[in-house]
């Protein structure tokens, strides 16, 4: 394959991986703080994408503006989700709690999928927003400007999250709960509330990713669970607890999909898992895991 195509595929892969990274960081944040693997994570992405689509369809508002409006709304959705469905499990014994959390989040995921399918008439009905930006052409390379804008915004959001975690009291508390929950409690941190806030932030990131998906590609009712599984690969590949690792993982899986997809699009999911296995063979704790 000639190098221009390869470079093109690499660029596309990175741009694709950015959105994966964003949503996966959200999932990782939730898991780190609460210990719950939220199997409904991808559904929030899907629902947010649909909401952006519907609002755009109805009011013709700018889709990026809609993402900025819808994502914070999903902070509340995530917060409420934790409060209503996850918090009641906290008093259970550890193994019961883990099993219940799987059932509850999986159940929520299935309901969300049916809900979206019911309203869009068809599980495979793909919705996307038509937004055209001229493609940048540099030499023989085609740079999809829409995806570039999305990638830029993704990086901005990841940077904002980083600054939040590093420089605000609340952000430090989120890290503290991740690193030592009991220590955090003894420090006067209301860990129950931090759990809900982490769900809120993580869900908000998924929602932003959902908005971006609907802008530069599409959403459909049945994309949620496969995406959650993909983010899980990304998190494990990046190394639990390392957001930089997760970001890298997202981009690597994006790259893998882009390159393999050039030959045959059917193998996208397999690539994610093969890459994961490959990385874990070399680095058992993930790229940047400690």
């Amino acid at each position, binding site marked *: 394959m000639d190098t221009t195509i390869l470079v093109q595929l690499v660029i596309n892969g990175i741009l694709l991986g950015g959105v994966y990274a964003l949503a996966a960081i959200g999932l990782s944040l939730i898991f780190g703080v609460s210990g719950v693997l939220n199997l409904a994570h991808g559904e929030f992405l899907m629902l947010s994408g649909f909401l952006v689509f519907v609002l755009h369809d109805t009011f013709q508002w700018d889709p990026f503006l809609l993402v900025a409006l819808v994502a914070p709304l999903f902070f509340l959705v995530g917060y409420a989700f934790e409060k209503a469905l996850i918090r009641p499990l906290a008093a259970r014994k550890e193994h019961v709690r883990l099993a219940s959390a799987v059932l509850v989040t999986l159940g929520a995921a299935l309901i969300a999928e049916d809900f979206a399918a019911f309203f869009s008439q068809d599980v495979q009905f793909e919705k996307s927003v038509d937004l055209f930006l001229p493609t940048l052409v540099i030499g023989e390379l085609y740079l999809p400007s829409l995806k570039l804008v999305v990638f830029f915004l993704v990086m901005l959001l990841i940077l904002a999250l980083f600054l939040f975690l590093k420089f605000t*009291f609340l952000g430090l508390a989120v890290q503290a709960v991740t690193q030592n929950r009991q220590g955090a*409690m003894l420090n*006067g*941190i209301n*860990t129950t509330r931090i759990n809900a806030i982490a769900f809120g932030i993580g869900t908000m990131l998924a929602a932003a990713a959902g908005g971006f998906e609907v802008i530069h590609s599409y959403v459909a009712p049945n994309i949620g669970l496969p995406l959650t599984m993909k983010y899980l690969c990304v998190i494990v590949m990046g190394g639990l607890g390392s957001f930089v690792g997760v970001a890298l993982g997202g981009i690597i899986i994006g790259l893998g999909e882009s390159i393999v997809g050039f030959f045959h699009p059917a193998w996208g999911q397999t690539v994610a898992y093969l890459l994961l296995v490959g990385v874990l063979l070399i680095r058992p704790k993930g790229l940047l895991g400690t």
Partner: protein
Amino acid sequence: MLELEAISVSYGDIPVIFGLSLRVKAGQIVSLIGGNGAGKTTTINTISGMLRPTGGDIRYEGASILDLPPHDRVARGIVQVPEGRMLFPKLTVRENLKLGAFQPALRKGLGRRMEEVWELFPRLRERMGQQAGTLSGGEQQMLAIGRGLMSAPRLLLLDEPSTGLAPVLVAEMFRAIRKINRRGVSILLIEQNAVQALRCAHHGYVLEQGHLFREGLPEALLTDAHIKAAYLGI
């Protein structure tokens, strides 16, 4: 200031504390000693609100605090420096200290209190930007206490602060504890190091397998034949 009134505590169905009564008067250092598994950590975790007693009451400044969650007890000035330190290993020394002042009411005096901590443990200042997980054991213990002080404690619960420290550092630690107490902080001190703990205390309690075995003035406990044989190794 703090009164435990006949508290009993269980883990699941297994009782470990049986009707323990204990009091810390304002301004005092009270030492609680006892062998491994006696229930010392369980006792202060109950005071901190990590565990709920199955019976009895805990009163702090005259009112029961049983219904307060742990963070609200910290807000009232009941601060625990836990066994095993429970630092935030990937955060820096400074960030760990900052989190000690997480409660909104505490953030105002943060700078001043951090100065006080630096003054007490100058070594921490030198290590300000270092990740807590990479500190030496002694430094970690200093940080754990420093972080506790950042919460502006009125009653400090110290769980084996001298564990794992070299003899020089142990002496330094006890000096620091006295200094903190002189600043007006009441202290409930749990120690394996029974002689030193009793020597710096105003009052002592000896716990054996969840039962109060003796209480009294340190001098009396230090000369008690049974205690000498069991805990003091003399």
